[in-house]
């Protein structure tokens, strides 16, 4: 019995499915509050861990889904696109994207959702993204050698750790649960800090309440 998934869609059904998947993607991003730069950057000030919770949670849910379905023979994991590993470009690219994230307040996906819900700064962010991609495109021939360096093809954690995929999935889930626990601790301590000390800090006015992004109007 060959596995039924992944399907091989084409034509109209492919377009509809792509749009639908995108729709839910955008929908849940906005639901999670990722249209607000305040909430997004809150993560890096230990104030609001939703970025970690949502991202890591989504990864674990999808990973376990993939694991069970391939274990039950319903999904052929071999046919799934696994992003290739380019060690150095991904390291350097990550650093740049992280810097852009904290500087700009968004990442490409959340930037779109923010822009659509009326965030003007997000529009500038998206313009910046197109600019960045254009610069990369122009510079790529010169950077090509580095862009290909550290190539390891499709390399997964189970191969690296020399453990069966099931075990690695279980470990990642454990790490995730640990991270969520840390997140809860950190957030509750921040709220405590917020209540008692925030007013007392010299000069800078209290930062706005985390949950509702009543940022100052334009």
């Amino acid at each position, binding site marked *: 019995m060959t596995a039924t998934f992944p399907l091989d869609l084409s034509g109209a059904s492919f377009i509809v499915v792509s749009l639908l*998947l995108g729709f839910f993607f955008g929908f849940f991003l906005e639901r999670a509050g990722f249209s607000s730069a305040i909430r997004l950057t809150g993560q890096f000030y230990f104030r609001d861990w939703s970025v970690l919770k949502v991202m890591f949670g989504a990864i674990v849910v999808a*990973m376990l889904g993939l694991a069970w379905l391939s274990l039950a023979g319903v999904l052929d994991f071999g046919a799934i696109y696994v992003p290739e590993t*380019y060690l150095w470009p991904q390291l350097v690219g990550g650093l740049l994207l992280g810097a852009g994230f904290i500087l700009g307040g968004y990442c490409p996906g959340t*930037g779109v959702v923010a822009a659509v819900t009326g965030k003007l700064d997000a529009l500038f962010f998206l313009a910046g993204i197109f600019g960045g991609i254009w*610069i990369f495109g122009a510079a790529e021939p010169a950077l090509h050698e580095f862009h290909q360096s550290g190539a390891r093809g499709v390399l997964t954690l189970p191969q690296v750790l020399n453990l069966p995929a099931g075990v690695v999935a279980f470990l990642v889930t454990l790490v995730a649960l640990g991270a969520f626990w840390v997140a809860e601790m950190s957030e509750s301590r921040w709220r405590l800090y917020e209540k008692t000390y925030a007013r007392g800090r010299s000069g800078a006015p209290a930062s706005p309440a985390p949950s509702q992004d009543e940022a100052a109007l334009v």
Partner: protein
Amino acid sequence: MSEQATYLPAFSERMIKKHHVAIMLLHWFNAFVWLAELTTGAALIQSDRFRFAPQWYVELVTGVFGTRANMLRFHIAVGLTWIVVLAVYGIFGWRTYLREEVLKREIALDRDDVNWLRIRILRLLGRSNEPLPPQGIYNAGQKLFALTVYAMVPLIAISGLIMAFHWGPASVVGWAVVVHFLAVAVVVSGLMIHVYMGAVFPEEKPAFFSMITGMVPESYAYRHHRKWWEEVKMLERKRAAGELEEAAPQASSRVWAALRAREYWPAYWAALGLGLTLLAAFLLVGQGLGASGGFTRYLAFLIQLVAPGYAASHPYWSNYVQAGRPVLMDFLALELIGVALGGLVSGWLAGRLRWTTDRGPSVPVRARWALAFAGGLLSGFGARMARGCTSGLALSGGATLSAGAFVFMLSVFAAAFAGAYLLRRIWL
């Protein structure tokens, strides 16, 4: 059975809450698991010396799964899921729910229960017509069944794991086979009564629906579970007198309310939604979600429009503009449109559509725009260098355990945390 004959309070057919939503979910999850495991389990035992089910049945179920190996793999997959879910319920729900609910109300057999059982059996044999003693939230029969299940489940789980992963020598696996079959047989014999009394026996019809809505009519509670009814009455009197302060929201329709709620969803629900969408993407189009890939294609489309020659010849852009395949006929490009729509709808439903600029308290708007643009430049360049961004490489790469994705995620968070300290002026 004090004032039963004289006083039959007029019941306004009010519904009383019997089951917590978590219990209902767990019950139907268990029902599904037992259905799946029993059907495949019975079919998995093939040799005549061990078989329960008839041969035609074994062939029928094997046919459904194609090969017996697939059937075993499915049986193990469902079994593992069952164990994990029960473990999660047990671990997370122990303090708040299990210790109090299970030990006190589901298992503890008091004198009334014992008499109930005795009389019930004698009645079956037509040898007694004593009235049955009053019962708690679950009658003695249900408690007895719960007891057997709680006893047998660990045996089934452990012996199942031993068989699936061959923990220990062959002799241990051999005994695990026996324990597994026997424990299941014990539960099945109890299950027959449970299913009959729950689903078939007319008198217990309200109990069946209570497992769906969580509510039971007060009259049923009064007649079948008197002690629990009195408990509820006592609680209501207290609440009426204002002594109780916990309030259980009577949400009429949770879903619609969640949609319209002004605050953001709790992260874990959003994570679940996002995770399932990501999983659906893998299943339907064989690849994960993404964003920066979409941008690149739109830019490539733009360049091809403006200067087709340059695009075709350029070493980087050329691999996006192959003849015969329109640039935008790509999952990531289409998906990006969806993202925009999804964000719009969600923002609209939550009433968050407003022209504004998110900025730190001490940053003028124009400066914020400039910073956003600069951030965009860095993000765009970084995303292309890494061949993916937080939604593409991190999410999809993370879910498929791609090593590069984890490297990428670590460096994103590292840079962001480091940057956050440097740029604390513009955000805090």
